[in-house]
């Protein structure tokens, strides 16, 4: 499986070799890849059903507990099938939808890489690996949302999506690290047995809230939901794939995966219920007032994600079962609606629901597909949606678990949400097709089969599973629910439960929802009324906050990064004096040991005098070259001191470096005009104080270091083993090329980057004619 995943990524980059325009007819064959994967995962159906899970182990960094272990259980399998199955259809669809787009090859590269990353997320059995793939989905989706990169809105939306999901991912990593810290393992299947260790831990609340931050941002939960409508700037196949069926469900996957591990029956569930409940209500309510078909779908998707979180929060057997079923139900009907929206947009060049109507005359097959999807979203019997709606109401009305007040509250919330969703489903799936066909649409033909087959296929599945739920129930959904619930589920999907409150609720939902659809017509006026709330919306607050941050960052940077090297150097030195000086005077008893110092030798004294004289020249001279030469003398004097105290390697290097520095300075300064008087007495006094303080501090530290016996263990190890282990007698060099060879390698790379930097900066300027002289 590891090789398979790797191949997906490699394959993604090979796609770039195809030429967008000339090879455009070959792109549809790329869908063989997701289809093959779909069949591959389908072949695991039986073994997952029999044995529960298939484990594949690969070591990555065993010393840190990081592995590339993959685990295929019911939950992973459901998501893998969704990713590859809907992936196949989207691959087919996009080949026609984006025909002859000049970056078609890039598009497929991103899409394939995204698919690989998403599979990685749902298959990983290791938290760190999961995180890596998780971030990869954020990055690939960034490219997909911003695919129309010449559109400013598109770029902005993709940046928002990346920032929000990236921020969440960051918190999620923190949560994972804490989990690893508490349980000493990153392996998810091992965590299942450590549930109580985690729940009783002092870090428990940090763990779950950081995890929530990751899941809620990815799955567009309130108050982070606003990136999802923005992400609709992406081409429609992307919206269908990422923003309804797969990526946004990654957060749901994460929560579902951790429900048996982290659920404490209290805070975990309550938070999910509140956040999910808020999200599902707000999303559904907003969706019925939108004019843009895609916006309707975006908000109803937010609502659906809210429902999933809400159900996971309820956490009862029925609720979990309902959530698992709803994942599949929603993926099927929402992807259908998105794909249909894409076709409508592609053929009529508008998505405005006020204009669109009567398209069933020109696209009859699509009208049927849209109709089925809308019915499924409304939960009309004989569609798959009916079954999940029954389960949702079943979950909120379980009188055995909830008190009477909660039953009423939860049910009303679910009822309202479902009413709105029914209405918005009709808006997107039925409204464009029924009524009178406007004249300008008379000429529209059926689109080509690659466009209409995918939505029709999906809606057919909606119908098939609705009539014959056992096809997916026993084989898949049972084991999914068992994975999330922690033990097997004692229920089955069935078409008929008898006359009970749940059925009445379903009927009422459909009736009220349909009525609402006929009462509320999308119009500009309604949309404007709704925009009053924007001032208090999370989007407004967060955007405002980020703008303020940017302004602050700008001011801050201007204050500290003012472009004068001398100021930078002074900041660094003053900061150093402040921090180190404080530590030295506050914590260390100052003691200068004068007894063990060796006596002054005459040549040391001479060197000292030369240095002093050279420093004096540097300060007082009015010629640049003289000061450089004098600085060189100071450097050579230091080399001599190294020689006196037995550090020949250091001295050699210092000699060479000093020579080169003088040469470099001469090269640069040679052509500059003579000394100008830059500084007045005030600045000179300031510089003097800083310099003396710095020099004094360093001397003090050096003297202090002599007082305390130093730890010789490391140096003794190197000295003892240089010849034994590395066959070298020069310890300094053995450390450089052998013991710490890796450091040296990195340092050479840093040096190279510096050289490339200098070269790039100077050459670039010359070529551009930007030099002012």
């Amino acid at each position, binding site marked *: 499986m590891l090789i398979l995943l790797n191949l997906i990524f490699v394959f993604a980059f090979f796609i770039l070799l195809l030429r967008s325009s000339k090879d455009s007819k070959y792109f549809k064959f790329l869908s063989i890849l997701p289809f093959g994967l779909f069949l591959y995962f389908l072949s695991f159906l039986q073994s997952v059903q029999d044995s529960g899970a298939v484990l594949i182990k690969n070591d990555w960094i065993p010393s840190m507990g990081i592995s590339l272990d993959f685990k295929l259980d019911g939950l992973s399998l459901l998501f893998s099938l969704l990713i590859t199955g809907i992936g196949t259809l989207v691959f087919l669809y996009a080949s026609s939808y984006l025909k002859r787009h000049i970056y078609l090859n890039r598009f497929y590269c991103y899409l394939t890489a995204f698919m690989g990353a998403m599979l990685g997320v749902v298959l990983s059995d290791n938290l760190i690996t999961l995180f890596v793939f998780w971030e990869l989905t954020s990055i690939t989706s960034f490219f997909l949302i911003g695919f129309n990169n010449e559109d400013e809105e598109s770029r902005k939306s993709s940046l928002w999506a990346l920032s929000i999901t990236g921020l969440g991912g960051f918190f999620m990593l923190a949560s994972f690290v804490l989990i690893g810290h508490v349980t000493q393992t990153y392996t998810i299947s091992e965590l299942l047995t450590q549930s109580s260790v985690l729940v009783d831990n002092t870090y428990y609340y940090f763990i779950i809230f950081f995890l929530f931050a990751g899941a809620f941002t990815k799955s567009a939960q309130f108050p982070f939901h606003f990136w999802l409508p923005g992400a609709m700037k992406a081409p429609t196949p992307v919206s269908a794939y990422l923003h309804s069926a797969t990526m946004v469900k990654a957060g749901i996957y994460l929560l579902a995966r951790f429900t048996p591990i982290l659920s404490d029956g209290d805070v975990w569930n309550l938070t999910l219920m509140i956040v999910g409940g808020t999200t599902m209500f707000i999303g559904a309510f907003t969706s019925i007032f939108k004019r843009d078909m895609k916006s309707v779908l975006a908000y109803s998707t937010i609502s659906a994600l809210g429902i999933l979180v809400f159900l996971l929060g309820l956490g009862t057997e029925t609720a979990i079962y309902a959530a698992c079923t709803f994942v599949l139900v929603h993926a099927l009907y929402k992807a259908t609606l998105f794909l249909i929206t894409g076709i409508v947009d592609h053929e009529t060049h508008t998505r405005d629901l006020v204009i669109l109507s009567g398209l069933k005359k020109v696209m009859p097959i699509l009208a049927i597909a849209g109709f089925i999807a809308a019915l499924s979203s409304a939960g009309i019997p004989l569609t798959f949606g009916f079954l999940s709606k029954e389960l949702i109401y079943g979950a909120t009305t379980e009188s055995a678990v909830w008190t009477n007040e909660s039953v009423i509250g939860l049910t009303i919330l679910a009822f309202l949400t479902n009413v709105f969703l029914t209405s918005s489903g009709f808006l997107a799936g039925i409204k464009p097709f029924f009524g009178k066909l406007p004249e300008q649409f008379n000429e529209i033909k059926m689109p080509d089969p690659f466009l209409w087959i995918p939505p029709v296929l999906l809606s057919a599945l909606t119908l098939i599973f609705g009539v014959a739920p056992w096809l997916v129930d026993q084989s898949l959904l049972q084991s999914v629910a068992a994975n999330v619930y922690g033990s097997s589920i004692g229920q089955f999907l069935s078409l008929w439960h008898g006359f009970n409150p749940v059925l009445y609720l379903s009927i009422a939902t459909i009736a009220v929802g349909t009525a609402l659809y006929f009462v509320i017509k999308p119009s500009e006026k309604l949309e404007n009324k709704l925009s009053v709330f924007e001032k208090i919306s999370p989007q407004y607050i967060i955007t405002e906050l980020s703008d303020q941050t940017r302004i602050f960052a700008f001011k801050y940077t201007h204050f500290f990064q003012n472009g004068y090297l001398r100021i930078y150097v002074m900041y660094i030195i003053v900061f150093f004096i402040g921090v180190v000086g404080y530590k030295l005077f506050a914590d260390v008893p100052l003691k200068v040991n004068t007894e063990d110092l060796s006596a002054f030798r005459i040549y040391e004294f001479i060197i000292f005098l030369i240095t002093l004289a050279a420093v004096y020249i540097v300060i007082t001279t009015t010629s640049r070259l003289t000061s450089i030469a004098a600085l060189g003398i100071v450097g050579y004097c230091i080399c001599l001191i190294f020689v006196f105290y037995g550090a020949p390697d250091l001295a*050699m290097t210092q000699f060479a470096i000093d020579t*080169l520095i003088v040469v470099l300075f001469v090269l640069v300064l040679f*052509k500059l005009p003579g000394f100008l008087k830059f500084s007045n007495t005030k600045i000179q006094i300031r510089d003097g104080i800083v310099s003396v303080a710095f020099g004094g501090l360093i001397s003090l530290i050096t003297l202090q270091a002599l007082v305390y016996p130093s730890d010789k263990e490391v140096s003794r190890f190197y000295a003892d083993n240089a010849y034994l282990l*590395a066959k*070298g007698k020069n310890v300094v*060099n053995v450390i450089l090329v052998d013991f710490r060879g890796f450091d040296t390698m990195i340092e*050479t790379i840093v040096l190279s980057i510096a*050289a490339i930097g*200098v070269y790039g900066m100077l050459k670039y300027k010359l070529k551009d004619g930007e030099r002012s002289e």
Partner: protein
Amino acid sequence: MEKDQNNGNSADNTVLRTSTNYLLPLLILFSIFVLLRGHYLSGGGFVGGLIASIAFVLHSFAYSPEETIKLFRFKPMFLIPIGLTLSFLSGILPTFLGKPFMTGVWFADSVVVIGAFGTALVFDLGVYLVVIGVVLTILFTISQNVEE
């Protein structure tokens, strides 16, 4: 702005040029010597590289940076990737023998001057080349930039 033409082709460079002609090979030989002895005595790739760079800088002072680049037949910048590759290969070699990355592998035990010959020396040679490449790239780029 005042321009000093002393860098070019005047006669008072004769002494410097003549001595450079002899010093350049000597210094380079010396730098290689420093590089090779590094494993047993003071020296090594870094210092060796610096000494070699100084030799070339001296040459560019006596003639001009362009003349020095001509000695190379290619831009000194290309020494950087060559050196990095050498270091990296020396590190990766042990992995083919089933040892961890950058484990020392020894080919011969007692060679004159060098001592033991192994991947450490190849690595050091890489460092030597990178240092020459980096120093010369920076100095020549700056000096050419100043002249224009």
